[in-house]
């Protein structure tokens, strides 16, 4: 299907866990440096030739860096805003009463938000103030604050199997594994020599972790023996912004990078790079794989476009 043009630069895209034709896009004006932001809720057309339609849009006073769908309510979104606030939106409510809630606790930009898929009532926010906060939707204040990183925390990811375990990626070049029940981190993985921009768990093996870094490589780790990575995936030409494991195939991953490409990897295979899409004309900073439709990929970048395509097809094909 054709690309969707957004007015601002795209930052993140997420498929809804409830509706296979719905996705949310986080966008920011002026590449997220200064200016407003917008949250788009898009609806994919039933037939491939039809265009993507926007069903809702929410303006924010600052850039929106990340977006997450609630796992408990099909209409609730959580947005990470660059002014340090976390905003909760409800698409069922009229625009006047949105955002539902604005949680202001972080002192710096909130860079990532991740919803707990197991517990379904809590979410994490990772911020550039070196801390990660745990929230529940019903409470106006955070439940826990995890402050151990020495630099900006770029991502936080819940373990898909263990409801209390999560991992965080930070600019201090480490990845930490936390347990919500513990006071501090339980594992410190010195993942890269440069900033780690994203981390994600394998959906089929709960001990496998992938990290994306500024050093242009993706490393796959087994936390049981975390001194050495299982594999190092090279192929991107610039820093890698996101890496996501496929919900359908255990060893498949998708990554997006500043080299304007979206790559697919299978780390169990000899030649790990199984697909490369360079449909974007600017930094690709958001990518997602649909849980409900196997092989459906979505990506967005600073070229103000959102592409949704099936793996194996050309994203730009109408």
């Amino acid at each position, binding site marked *: 299907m054709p690309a969707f043009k957004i007015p601002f630069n795209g930052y993140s895209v997420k498929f809804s866990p409830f509706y296979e034709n719905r996705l949310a896009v986080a966008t920011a004006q002026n590449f997220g440096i200064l200016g407003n932001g917008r949250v788009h809720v898009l609806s994919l057309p039933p037939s491939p030739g039809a265009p993507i339609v926007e069903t809702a849009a929410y303006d924010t006073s600052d850039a929106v860096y990340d977006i997450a769908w609630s796992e408990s309510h099909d209409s609730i979104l959580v947005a990470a805003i660059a002014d340090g606030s976390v905003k909760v939106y409800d698409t069922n409510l009229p625009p006047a009463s949105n955002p539902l809630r604005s949680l202001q606790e972080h002192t710096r930009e909130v860079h990532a938000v991740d919803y707990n898929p197991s517990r379904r009532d809590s979410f994490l926010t990772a911020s550039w103030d070196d801390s990660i906060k745990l929230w529940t939707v019903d409470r106006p204040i955070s439940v826990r604050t995890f402050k151990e990183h*020495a*630099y900006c925390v770029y991502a936080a990811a819940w*373990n898909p*199997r*263990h409801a209390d*375990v999560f991992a965080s990626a930070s600019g*201090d*070049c*480490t990845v930490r*594994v936390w*347990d919500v*029940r*513990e*006071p*501090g*981190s*339980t*594992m*410190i993985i*010195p993942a890269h020599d440069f900033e780690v921009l994203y981390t994600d768990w394998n959906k089929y093996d*709960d*001990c496998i972790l992938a990290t994306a870094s500024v050093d242009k490589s993706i490393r796959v780790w087994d*936390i*049981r*023996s*975390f*001194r050495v990575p299982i594999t190092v995936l090279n192929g991107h030409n610039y820093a890698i912004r996101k890496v996501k494991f496929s919900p359908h195939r255990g060893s498949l991953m998708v990554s997006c990078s500043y080299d304007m490409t979206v790559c697919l990897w299978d780390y169990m295979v000899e030649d790990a790079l199984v697909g490369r899409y360079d449909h974007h004309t600017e930094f690709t900073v958001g990518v997602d794989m649909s849980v409900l439709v196997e092989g459906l990929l979505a990506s967005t970048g600073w070229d103000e476009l959102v592409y949704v395509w099936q793996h194996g097809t050309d994203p730009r094909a109408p």
Partner: protein
Amino acid sequence: MANPSTDTKIENPALAEPRNEGDQNATTTTPKPISSPSVFVNSEPIRPEQVENAVKFLSHPKVRGSPVMYRRSFLEKKGLTKEEIDEAFKRVPDPSPTVQGATVNQDPQPKLVANAQLQAPAQAQQTSAAPTRGVISRVISQPRFHWTHAIYAVGILAVSGAGSAVLFKNALIPRLKSWIRKIASEDENGVVRKPGSKPSATEEAAAAAKTAAEAAAQVAKASQEMMDMNIEEKRCFRNLMDMLEVQQREMREMSFTIRKLEDQTNSSSVVRTYSQDYRLSSSKQPYTNGMAEFNSLPGRSSLPPASVNSSIPPYPKSYIEEFNDLSSNAYQQHMPNSGVAPRSKPWEAGQPPNSSSTYQLQADSDLGNINGSTSRWQQKNVRIAELENEEESKVGPYYSSQAPEQTARRPWVPPQPPPVAMAEAAEAIRRPKPTVQKEQQLTSDHKLDQPLNELQSVTDISETGGAPEARPSEIVEELEGNC
């Protein structure tokens, strides 16, 4: 540690596997007394060599000055586990309040106790740490020894410097003076003693001094002569200039009369005569050859090379275009100054045309040989123009209208003449002109009653045409310099 609590809490089903894996992990190294079933906890034992390295790292004086967060972060990046880092921090006492209270009291090592006692004065001042220096162990004392060492070194240097200065003043200089006096007195005595006495070393020294003095006197005389010669040269050059002025005046008179005649006869050919006049009047100037065609306005003969300003429209397009190409800006046709702006700095666009045009000239000189020579040529023209303008201002009433125009038209001060190294390139452009200059020199030489040797030689060379190109410029430079 947190492990026992995780043991009890992680009794969930589906963790039979992790338990096994945790045991497997423990078998790789010596099993820790507390083995955790949770996979997400680091169950490696503390590695002593890593802890040792960490202790060494933390004991380094530079590290001690850095925030605790950075030290922890560094060790974490190196792959140390939390337990290892905590252990290392325990072993190396930390002056920061977060670590001090818990670790120092608990640790029974005597070193640490002594260090603990010294931590309070350590933070205070170095002078207060002085009495404890003997007790301090090497670990903490190193930085303070460094400081005291530095202070001692500085003090010793200062004292030695002062002492040597005093010594020099008090001891050596009187010695010198007495020696000199001795020589002088011996010299006097030496004249009496001369016929019969052996020449002593002092007498020889006196004689040497005498000769030196005589040599100096001769040098002084020679320099005096040089000065006189320079003055004479100046005089002669001034005469030359006067002659040139006279010639110029005559030329102008001629041009005016011709103009009057032309006015009376044919008005349409004014422009042509103006241009002719221009060429006539510019014949004195050796540089306007190439630029003559673009300025046909009357009375601006001395000006055109200096017309870098945008006010004169018929500026050679080729020059501007070349400049435009370099600055890659298409709008510079009438604003050569703005062509300079992107090159310098965008926020300096508000500068007055003076500096920007000088910059432009200097930038021209950077552009390349051709442009550089043209700019130098322009600079030369400007200086000659200025000279002639000064002369013109003295000359007569009908020039007064031009002089203020000209002085007004040149708002900028020409930059310093560049070194003569590039003179050859400049001469390449000036080549057509030296012929006229030669004529003037010849005529002026004949008129002069006291031709200087230099001038004569110059004219000789110019007549031969061997290396004449360098000479006219030098004459001009001297003209400019002296007059």
